[in-house]
């Protein structure tokens, strides 16, 4: 297994405000890493650093051994794709056209239209998310869950080595949540795509990932397998709320139950 991504001693933020402090992280090829942490802990900012939207104040990021600074945006877009939380959809666009946007990094200056190869890849990524039959529908006809799947299809069409997903299951019903996580599993197993996923739902994170990174206040609290990370001490300190941790009988991964105030009194 070779090293894909290294974040070395990165501190970063906006203006004067430091959001990430001394982050060290390395991700191997083929890994699935979950990032958890309270709101404002720097999860999305970490993604911004990895995708070169933000330049770190200190430290550096390496991708495939190369400094991120020396990789052009276009080259990076062929290797790293992001499914963001608040995608903007042009609702008049067809599903196919939207997914084809993922082929933009592969276009040369004077190539204005997609070739057969682009079409094949776009169809392929739509069939992976199971939406191929919707390819000519306008985006406005799709449900929230389907739109999220289309976003993922667009990212797959970029043919990335590393796929970043920012809360891919939030606002979705449990059926769609599981469908998306199954899809991500399949991509990881079959296409060897490395995945870093931000989760708000700790239990989804626990079930889905073999390695979790807990962020708090811009620093890494702990980085390890779910059993080590999701202890009630860790969760209670970071989230400032009482919880009970039990084991999922099937996967034997930790499962978090919240404890409400009235129960504490009893």
């Amino acid at each position, binding site marked *: 297994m070779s090293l894909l991504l290294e974040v070395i001693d990165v501190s970063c933020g906006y*203006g004067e405000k430091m959001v990430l402090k001394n982050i060290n992280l390395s991700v191997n090829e083929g890994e699935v890493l979950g990032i958890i942490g309270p709101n404002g802990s720097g999860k999305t900012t970490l993604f*911004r650093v990895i*995708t*070169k*939207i933000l330049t770190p104040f200190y430290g550096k990021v390496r991708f495939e051994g190369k400094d991120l600074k020396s990789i*052009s*945006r*276009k*080259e*990076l*877009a*062929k290797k*790293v*794709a*992001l499914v*963001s939380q608040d*995608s*903007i959809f*042009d609702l*008049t*666009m067809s599903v196919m*056209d939207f997914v084809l*946007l*993922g082929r*933009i*990094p592969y*276009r040369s*200056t*004077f190539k*204005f*239209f*997609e*070739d*057969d190869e*682009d*079409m094949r890849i776009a169809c392929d990524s739509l069939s992976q998310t199971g939406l191929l039959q919707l390819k000519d529908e306008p985006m406005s006809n799709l449900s929230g869950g389907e739109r999220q799947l289309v976003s993922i299809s667009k990212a797959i069409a*970029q043919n990335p080595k590393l796929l970043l997903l920012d809360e891919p299951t939030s606002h979705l019903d449990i059926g769609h949540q599981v469908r998306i996580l199954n899809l991500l599993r399949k991509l990881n197993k079959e296409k060897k795509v490395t995945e870093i996923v931000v989760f708000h739902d700790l239990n989804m994170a626990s079930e889905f990932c073999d390695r979790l990174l807990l962020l708090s206040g811009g620093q890494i609290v702990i980085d390890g397998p779910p059993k080590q990370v999701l202890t009630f001490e860790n969760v209670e300190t970071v989230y400032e709320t009482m919880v009970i941790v039990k084991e999922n009988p099937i996967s034997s991964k930790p499962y978090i139950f919240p404890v409400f105030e009235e129960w504490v009194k009893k």
Partner: protein
Amino acid sequence: MKEKKKKLLISLVGSFLILLICVFSSIIVGPAGMVLLPKDIYEEAILFDLRLPRVLLGFAAGGSLSLSGLLLQGIFRNALVEPYTLGISGGAAIFVAISIITRLDEIFGSFFLSVAGFVGSFVVLLIILFLSSRKHLKKEELLLSGVMISFVCSSFIMLLFAIVRSEDVHRIIFWMMGTLQEDKRGMILFLSLVSVFFLLMSYLFSVDLNALQLGEEEASHLGVDVFRIKRILLILSSVLTGITVSITGIIGFVGLLVPHVMRLFFGSDHRFLVFSSFFFGSSFLIVCDTISRILIRPAELPVGVITGIFGGSLFLYLLLRRKE
């Protein structure tokens, strides 16, 4: 893919055919009546010295303004932006007003007004570029800065109106209303060449503009150098607007309306919008100009009045007629 090339061909050929029809009908129709084949020198002069240059200027100015509007709406992802929103026209207007008041145009000739207009728009362009070079400035703030520049300019012109002689005010207002009446062939030719060149340049960025519609961060994730593209397109559209305004004055509404009409027909894909907006903008302005010349002949209406009334109602009609 084949469908798209077909769509491009339809958008290109369609808008170009409309343009040809408009050009042709505007050349044969005018205040002096129909002239199809010139029978004498007099009619020849009407065709080639009066109508043809005017149609050519309509082609260049209408196309430039529409293209500029399309690019700016694309960069800012805002449907209400038009070529004059950033204050390019305001800068031009101040400099032109000052030249009229100081009688500089009488000393150096009417050509001087165009020079003054261009210098004015160039000054604003520099301010805009300076603002856009600050990375932390959000695009809404840049837009707002442009609106503020516009307001400062128009207030300054109001100030001039308040203190200068009324005949000067009249001349300034007439310049500001815009006209395609221009007797310097060289300038018309210059604008035509520049606008066509910029049109071809803009097409190179049509896919980047499509990516930008997903938001700036998303576009970056697709490998688009957002900062660079935005600056290039900002310069392209501002220079185009600046040159146009300095030759024709401030012809309103074309740059706002035409891109929207084209979106109703071709959707939001800039690969189909760039050429069609340019050609349709040309056609639209040429037709409006012809109407403005024959409606109350022998007098002439300001073409901006026609673009507003005719264009606005046309757009409302198209919007309401569109099927759910």
